[in-house]
C-alpha cells in the first residue's frame, strides 16, 4: 500500500478518534473539508485495503457528525451551562451545600429487594466455580512464596527495616502529629495515614497501630458508612483493647 496516498485518510481517522475520546468540541473538525479530501483521494485508491481505510474514515466522520448533533441538542437544552462557571461554583460551594442540592432534586426509586430463584442460581454458580484462595492467584504469583501473614516488630528490627531508636522516634513524632491534627476531635483515619508513597502510608498505619495498642490513640469505626476515625489521647486509655482489622490499600 502506498503510504502517501493513505496519509491524509489516516490523519482524518486519528483526528476523529481524538475528538470522540475526549470532551472536545466536535465542531472543531471541518467535515466538508475532510469530505473533499476523501473525494479527491478516492480515484487513487485501488486496493481493497486502501478502500477499507477510506470507508473507515467515512465512518469516523459520520460518528463526529453524530457528536455534533448531540452537542447542539445539549447546548440548546436548559442543562447547558458554561463548564468554567460550573467548575467555579463547585469549587466555592461546601460539600454540605452540594449534597443538599442533590437531595433536593432527588426522587429515589421505590423497589422491593427479594431473593429470587434466578438470584439463588447465580449465587450457587458463583460459589461452585469460585477457586480456593490457594489456587486463585496462582497464574499471577505462582504457587511459590509465603502466604500472607503477620510480621512482628522484632522481625522488622531483625530485617533492618528500622532500628529500635528510630522506631521509637518515629512513633513519638507520629503521636505529636496526631495530637496536633486531632486536637481532641475525631479525624479521618485514611486521610491521616495518607502519604506520598504506598510504603510510607503502610509505615504510618503500622506505627499508628502501635499507638492504638499502647492506649495513646483511639480508633472508632462506622460500619454503615465504612468510615474510620482516629483521635490522639492525652492520657493512656484503660480497659481491654478491642482488635480491629483495617485494610491499607494503594490509593485508597
Amino acid at each position, binding site marked *: 500500500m502506498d503510504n502517501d496516498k493513505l496519509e491524509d485518510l489516516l490523519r482524518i481517522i486519528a483526528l476523529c478518534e481524538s475528538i*470522540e*475520546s*475526549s*470532551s472536545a468540541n466536535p465542531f472543531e473538525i471541518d467535515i466538508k473539508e475532510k469530505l473533499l479530501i476523501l473525494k479527491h483521494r478516492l480515484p487513487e485508491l485501488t486496493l481493497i485495503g486502501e478502500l477499507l481505510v477510506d470507508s473507515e474514515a467515512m465512518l469516523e466522520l459520520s460518528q463526529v457528525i453524530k457528536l455534533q448533533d*448531540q*452537542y447542539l441538542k*445539549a*447546548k440548546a437544552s*436548559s*442543562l*447547558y*451551562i*458554561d*463548564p468554567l*462557571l*460550573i*467548575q467555579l*461554583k*463547585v*469549587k*466555592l*460551594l461546601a*460539600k*454540605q*451545600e*452540594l*449534597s*443538599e*442540592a*442533590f*437531595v*433536593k*432534586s*432527588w*426522587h*429515589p*426509586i*421505590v*423497589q*422491593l*429487594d*427479594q431473593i*429470587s430463584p434466578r438470584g439463588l442460581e447465580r449465587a450457587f454458580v458463583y460459589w461452585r466455580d469460585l477457586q480456593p484462595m490457594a489456587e486463585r492467584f496462582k497464574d499471577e504469583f505462582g504457587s511459590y512464596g509465603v502466604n500472607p501473614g503477620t510480621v512482628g516488630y522484632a522481625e522488622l528490627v531483625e530485617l533492618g527495616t528500622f532500628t529500635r531508636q528510630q522506631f521509637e522516634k518515629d512513633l513519638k513524632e507520629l503521636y505529636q502529629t496526631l495530637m496536633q491534627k486531632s486536637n481532641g476531635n475525631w479525624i479521618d483515619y*485514611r*486521610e491521616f495515614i*495518607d502519604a506520598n508513597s504506598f510504603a510510607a502510608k503502610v509505615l504510618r498505619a503500622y506505627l499508628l497501630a502501635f499507638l492504638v495498642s499502647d492506649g495513646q490513640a483511639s480508633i472508632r469505626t462506622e460500619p*454503615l*458508612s465504612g*468510615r474510620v476515625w482516629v483521635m490522639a489521647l492525652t492520657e493512656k486509655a484503660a480497659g481491654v483493647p478491642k482488635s480491629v482489622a483495617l485494610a491499607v490499600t494503594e*490509593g*485508597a
Partner: protein
Amino acid sequence: METADKALLERKVRKAFQVLVLQRGRNPGVKGWELKRHLGRDYKQIVEVLSEDVSPLGMEVFEVKGPDGTDDTSRFLLRFKEPPSVSEAETSGIRIDDLAVLASTIAFVNSKQGRAARREVEHFLRDKFPKWRVEYSLDRYVKRGYLEQDDRALLHIGWRTRAEVDEKTLMTMILSRGSKEVTPP
C-alpha cells in the same frame, strides 16, 4: 364504567404495581415491552391510573425514555414524588461526601454536553475531594447506573440519574447556591 370493566382495571392496576415493585433483573424498573406483555396494549393508561393511585402515598410512576424514544424501550419505575428531606437522606446511611461527588460530577458532565473524559472529571473533583474518594465514588456510581463509562473512558449521565434526579433543578440549585435560595419547581 361497568362493574366488570372496573374490576378488570383494578386487577390490571394491581398487577402493574406488583410488576413495577418486584425486582426482576439487575436494575430496577420494567421496560415498556414487558409491561405490554403483562398488562396488554393499553399499558400506558393503566400505568397512569396507578400513578394517580400511589400519589397520596408520595409516589409516582416515572418513565425514562429509551435510546430510540419509543414507549416499548422506555423504562418505567416507581419513585418518590417529592425529594426526601436532607435529614431523611442522611439517616438512610448515605454519606454527604458521596452525594457531593455525584452532584459535582453530574453538573460537570452536563456542562460538557453530556460526556467528559474520566481523567478530566477526576482532575476536576480532586480539587475538592481526596483522590481515594474520587476514584471509589466514581466506580461505585458507574456500577449503580448513575454514571456510564464507555470503552473510551468517557463518562456519560447514567439511566439511574435520568430516573432519579431532576437534572434541571440540580443545575439551578448549584448555580443559585451562594447567591440566593431557590425552591425546586
